[in-house]
């Protein structure tokens, strides 16, 4: 009797879930071992991270504020992945959304109840506008959106740096390299946590429903997994591609609006804090499932927040970054490993 490994095209959900849990646990154990070797107390550190994050409402509120932009950006990338497009530009669309919302808040007079929706719409439209060119280039000329969306991130970042240190600079002279504080803010509902979070959660649930229950969602999924077959079946793949990519940009742009109007309060360079790039990891870990994105964005927020606490305990930024990368590496290995099963071979086979 002998055994061999067999690779399945898709992992069984229960196995995939177990592999995910095992990989996170193994990554933490490895990290703990490394910390022990450099002379730190891993268990005490872990206890401190858990206590600081989950042991007080301040910690939980901080976590929720970190979770929100990660969820927007994760959803943006996940949606595009559904039709087979890689939106590497969520970072830029996030910046543009923040930029447009700031423009409305600073220069358009009006009551809060009218300004906030206008800012949200402007943020989403700006995000969509930022991905419009890559979308059309991909849809009509077959240009890889990987490169075009990525390169536009730098343009967006420089635009935000320029307006926040130049024409839109805070005139008070008390704040450097930033615009004035926005006169309106997304209302808070729990401590410092604002409505950007529930809106993102509703968005995730809504998107999951659209993909699961509507014809449009079905056609998008087929268009993503097998464009040839979808076209043959008469589905308007190109139209869906354009719509989905613009939706992706809009979600990231809305995230930027929520960050500037809910969390930070001023537009400044670096407001995106790499959320757009982290969103790629969030979406990939969730396998582009909107509901899964909620879980992976939360995991990512917990890890990043833990990283901040570890930094105050004497770990360098680089060590913390390496630990974060370690967890993701293990998760990727676990995902792949979950596709294998051991089969027993009959004698003589």
């Amino acid at each position, binding site marked *: 009797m002998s055994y061999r490994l067999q690779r399945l095209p898709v992992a069984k959900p229960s196995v995939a879930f177990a592999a995910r849990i095992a990989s996170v646990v193994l990554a933490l154990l490895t990290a703990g071992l490394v910390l022990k070797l450099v002379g730190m107390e891993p268990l005490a550190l872990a206890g401190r991270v858990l206590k600081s994050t989950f042991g007080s409402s301040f910690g939980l509120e901080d976590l929720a504020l970190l979770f929100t932009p990660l969820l927007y950006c994760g959803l943006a990338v996940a949606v595009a992945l559904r039709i087979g497009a890689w939106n590497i530009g969520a970072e830029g669309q996030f910046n543009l959304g923040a930029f447009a919302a700031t423009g409305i808040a600073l220069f358009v007079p009006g009551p809060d109840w009218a300004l906030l929706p206008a800012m949200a719409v402007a943020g989403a439209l700006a995000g969509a506008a930022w991905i419009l060119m890559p979308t059309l280039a991909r849809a009509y000329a077959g240009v890889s959106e990987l490169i075009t969306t990525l390169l536009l991130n730098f343009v967006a970042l420089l635009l935000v740096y320029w307006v926040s240190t*130049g024409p839109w600079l805070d005139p008070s*002279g*008390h704040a450097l*390299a930033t615009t004035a504080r926005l006169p309106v803010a997304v209302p808070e509902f729990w401590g410092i946590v604002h409505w950007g979070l529930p809106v993102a959660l509703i968005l995730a649930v809504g998107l999951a429903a659209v993909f699961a229950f509507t014809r449009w969602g079905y056609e998008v999924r087929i268009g993503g997994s097998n464009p040839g077959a979808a076209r043959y079946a008469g589905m308007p793949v190109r139209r869906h591609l354009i719509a989905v990519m613009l939706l992706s940009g809009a979600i990231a742009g809305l995230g930027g609006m929520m960050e500037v109007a809910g969390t*930070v309060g001023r537009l*400044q360079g670096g407001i995106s*804090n790499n959320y757009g790039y982290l969103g790629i990891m969030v979406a990939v870990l969730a396998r582009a499932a909107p509901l899964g994105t909620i879980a992976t964005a939360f995991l990512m927020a917990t890890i990043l927040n833990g990283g901040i606490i570890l930094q105050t305990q004497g770990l*360098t*930024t680089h060590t913390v970054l390496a630990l974060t990368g370690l967890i993701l590496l293990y998760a990727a290995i676990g995902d792949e490993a979950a596709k294998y099963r051991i089969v027993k071979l009959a004698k003589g086979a």
Partner: protein
Amino acid sequence: MISIKSLSRRGFLNMGAAAGAGLLLPKTGLVRPAFAEAPLAPVDVKDAMIAFGHTGPVSDEGWTWAHDQGMKAVEAAFPGIRTSFVESVPYSADATRIFRQFVADGANMVFATSNYGDFLYDVARRAPEVAFYECDGRTHMDNLGTYYVQHWYPSYVAGIAAGAMSKTGKLGYVASFPVPSVYSGTNAFLMGARTVNPAATVQCIVINSWFDPQAATQAGTALLDNGCDVLFGIMDEAGYLQVAEARGAKAVMWNTDLRRYGPKAYITSIMVDFKPFYVEQVRRRLAGEWTPTYGLLPMGQGVDRDAWGETVPPEVAAKADAARTKMMQEGWSPFVGEIKDSKGTIKVAAGQKMTEEELYHWDWSIEGVSGLDA
């Protein structure tokens, strides 16, 4: 984050109450307003925790390294004191999380060694028993002080040497952001250079970072390609000095003695020393004497030029040092009108002397400086 938004509601009520109290109290003299400046309670050194949030890595051999030396001086002056620091704190909501974590860990005093603005104030407002300091800050609170250096004086002195050693009269500047430190640094540098070369100019390239050796190196190369032959900047590392050395140009640096990265190119450096300041403020905090201060460390007490580089001719060094001596001994200031901005408008009238406050808040380029004004 919260507190700013609460300004619109709760904050306004508080401000109203404070204003009301302010009106009433001088008459009654019975109640002390809550915002009166009383020193924070003393702390035993064994229970004390001092935290530092840095903009770059402590190994940068520049700005952050200099502040880290300050933390080490505190540790030496108060044996047994607990310290904590975080490097490369981003200018984003992550900064708030880091400063809040310091407070959660029991910090009695928190130094932000760069301008973190609202990200710091949000935490300071919610921790009134903790002393905060913001380097290069411009906001005053009951528990938040500011500190910085009068770097425009040594920048002027270095400018005299740079102007004398430049053949083209084109000086280059690697800038972080168009912020007052950069305006005052470039303006002072050019004003110094023009005392020996009235046609000198300063061209700036903004790289949107205080610590990005690669971008600083590229900016330095671009400036030299553009005809500049002396580089200055406000970087936390030695990137553009190495470019100048390789290309046979000259460079003026910031923070520390970096001459070994470019001995031929090195003119001098705007040296900073925060050790006595940190030790004194921690002493005041522990002793229960601390109330916020807003001082700028003067030349000779926290900021100065470094010893001149090996290629600086003695007569050039002597000329620059004459200005330095005049500043330190006679209180002489070169920042006297008439001074025009980059658009030709007279901003400082003839004979008028700029105040330290104006120099600290300088937010326009003088005529001859390009690349900063929008």
